[in-house]
């Protein structure tokens, strides 16, 4: 279906308008202006905020600048979670832009992993891709690939070139969706192999997914779940939730308490998880699902 390719593009090009403000207690030599940026949902905070760091470093003394970290309404933001997941989980039902506070001091060791270089992000990203393939294909597909193919997946995530709108610090992506040599094509040339499965099967061995909720103590729910039931029927998102997190499903005559969100939308619970896995996974090949309170308005 041609519609399915559109879903892949919509997921890839999703952006979140964000306003970065320096934490008030950071020591500055002059006033720090906020910095506006459109963040790619599919990327990671520390991968796309070099310009943010440079912007605030300009008003700070060199010795006061240590590792950058980000916080939203008091919650440190885990850079190793994709940006779209962080937004869906913490701020999806609040007014845009997403207001993120930038810190350079008092790194919260208990909440955040250190990110000392781009290599750390690459290692984390590739580990997720490998873990996903361990679930989907017993690692057969990822292991058959050459190192250069792995590199191509990572390169697909690297910053697109951005155009600066003259007279402002607002940036928009320069790569147009129609361009044939853009990062999307580069990424999917390899990633499509990770989305294949033997013709005799109806899907992957297990679906790589993680379910997040802000209120719980556990970091996320991840379990073995087959895309096809024993009777040959495709398992749906509803089936997945029933099995691993039944509390997220609204009872028959009950009031809807939660939203089940992926990439900023609520897929119908009747959607087959195999389809979701192929079309709405993040570049790390995981379905990152947020359970958030139903907004009351």
């Amino acid at each position, binding site marked *: 279906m041609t519609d399915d390719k559109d879903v892949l593009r919509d997921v890839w090009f999703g952006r979140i308008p964000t306003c970065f403000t320096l934490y008030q207690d950071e020591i500055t030599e002059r006033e720090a202006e906020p910095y506006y940026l459109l963040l790619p949902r599919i990327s990671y905070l520390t991968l796309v905020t070099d310009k943010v760091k440079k912007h605030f470093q300009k008003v700070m003394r060199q010795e006061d600048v240590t590792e950058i970290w980000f916080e939203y309404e008091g919650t440190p933001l885990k850079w190793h979670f994709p940006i779209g997941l962080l937004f869906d989980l913490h701020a999806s039902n609040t007014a845009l832009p997403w207001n993120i506070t930038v810190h350079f001091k008092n790194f919260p060791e208990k909440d955040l992993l250190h990110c000392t270089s781009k290599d750390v992000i690459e290692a984390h990203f590739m*580990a997720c891709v490998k*873990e996903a393939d*361990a679930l989907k294909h017993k690692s057969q597909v*990822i*292991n058959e690939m050459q*190192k250069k193919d792995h590199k191509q997946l990572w390169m697909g995530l690297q910053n697109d070139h951005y155009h600066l709108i003259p007279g402002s610090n607002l940036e928009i992506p320069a790569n147009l969706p129609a361009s044939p040599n853009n990062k999307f094509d580069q990424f999917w040339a390899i990633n499509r192999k990770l989305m294949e499965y033997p013709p005799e099967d109806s899907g992957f061995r297990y679906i790589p997914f993680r379910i997040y909720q802000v209120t719980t103590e*556990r970091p996320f729910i991840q379990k*073995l779940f087959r895309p096809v039931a024993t009777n040959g029927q495709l398992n749906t998102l509803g089936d997945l939730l029933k099995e691993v997190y039944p509390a997220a499903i609204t009872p028959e005559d009950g009031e809807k308490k939660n939203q089940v969100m992926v990439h900023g939308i609520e897929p119908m619970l009747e959607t087959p998880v195999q389809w979701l896995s192929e079309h709405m996974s993040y570049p790390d090949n995981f379905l990152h699902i947020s359970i958030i309170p139903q907004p009351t308005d």
Partner: protein
Amino acid sequence: MLHALVSPGRGWDGRTAANSLSRHEGVGGAGSVAAELCVRRAAYAWGRGSCLCRRCAAPLFLHSPAPHPASALALVDVLLKAVGDTPIMKTKKWSVERTRTIQGLVDFIKKFLKLVASEQLFIYVNQSFAPSPDQEVGTLYECFGSDGKLVLHYCKSQAWG
């Protein structure tokens, strides 16, 4: 014989604690069952804020932050295998709390092997991927465990990228 994952602390070192536990060993089947019950009872007790395992006087610091509910303290069996020229742990089989993170496991192995804290240690699942330091052992066990245990390879250098 399955040992509890012991974090040395409050004046106890790994050796002393391990020796305390080993007092249950060599007593035959009853001894090992007693030891295992001791471990699991202590694990459960920790959830209530106190350690019951005073009989062998081994303090089982299973989790330094605030106690978790008992269900979270369920233990999973982990088999640790050395890769390359990384020192081999004398005890390879461990009972680990579900909520212990990979970082917590790394810290424990480093202490046990007397490695310097600054030395790197990589952990691999299925000899194919290195889980994130904040990953929980329980989740990895559920997804990648086999024959009732989770096999983890550890290495001082990057083995599988």
